[in-house]
């Protein structure tokens, strides 16, 4: 039985006032409300005074001057080599 994909979200946490939001990891959730609740449970264990941002991974545009992988277009790119970011034609196996 194969599984329908749930969107991937990146999580950023600001641990205390006066600090920056820091990327702490990712999680799967169907929508932003669930993503925020899940992030709170997973990355902060619901500590008070903590601010959380959740962003759909597909909405992140990344670039790095040090990147050397020619597989990627140099501009407007994605943070990961994630399969669901790319449309694969039907019938292609092992992808």
């Amino acid at each position, binding site marked *: 039985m194969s599984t329908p994909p*749930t969107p991937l979200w990146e999580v950023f946490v600001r641990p205390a006032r006066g600090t920056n939001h820091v990327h702490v990891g990712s*999680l799967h959730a*169907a929508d932003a409300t*669930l993503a925020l609740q899940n992030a709170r449970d*997973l990355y902060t264990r619901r500590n008070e005074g903590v601010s959380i941002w959740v962003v759909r991974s597909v909405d992140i545009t990344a670039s790095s001057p040090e990147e050397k992988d020619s597989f990627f277009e140099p501009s407007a790119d994605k943070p990961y080599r994630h399969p669901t970011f790319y449309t694969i034609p039907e019938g292609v196996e092992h992808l």
Partner: protein
Amino acid sequence: MTSSAPANAEVAAYAIRLGDDALILSHRLSEWSAHAPQIEEDIALSNIALDLLGQARTLLTYGGSYSGRSEDDLAYLREERQFTNLQLTEIENGNFAVTMIRQLLFSCYQHELYRDLESSRDAQLAAIAAKAVKEVAYHVEHASTWIIRLGDGTELSHDRAQAALETVWPYSHEMFADDELARRIADLGVGPLPSGLRPAWLGSVQDVLTEATLTLPDDDWKPTGGRKGLHTEGFGYLLAEMQHLHRSHPGAQW
């Protein structure tokens, strides 16, 4: 934190009653471990179970201190007829919809209850309530989020959510039944009259159910008895599982 014992037997019994609610529902929720619909939900349900267990421990410790009984004495050495939790807290988990409906109805009640208890004449109960009300606000939010998605998701999830509501709704009435102890506690200014909590509770619950496109069931059957120690048949099995190991080693420390 050192605390004095309850002022009288009634306050002690009241604390134990609230502790029993939290203890038994926590136990039911803990049965989901490793079986939830997704791993994120395993974590969320455990969080709620842990919050409730924490509430249970402080309430039972406080209530039990009046008669020299510890939290474990109360949890592991009382029989079925001595537990005073609502039947709502002991009904089986069923499917995820049943669990979430049970959580919504109970947590909305706990929210009204604890908000009122913050101004209790009993300082210890007021302190417990002040901490618990924040936890319970999150429980309400979590349950609401899921009920809305189940009710307004697929046709299958809607049917299951409605069926869950029909199953659980009858048990909600006991939360608002005034018995002798409840009236005494209200007179003492220690806690709210249960029936007084219902209008606000119904408003909150209805808002969620409406957004979830679910229909309020009829108020025909109103099972009761938990507060008097009359429980469902499933409760005996719950206690057997929960208490067996502790009872097998009388007096042992863990």
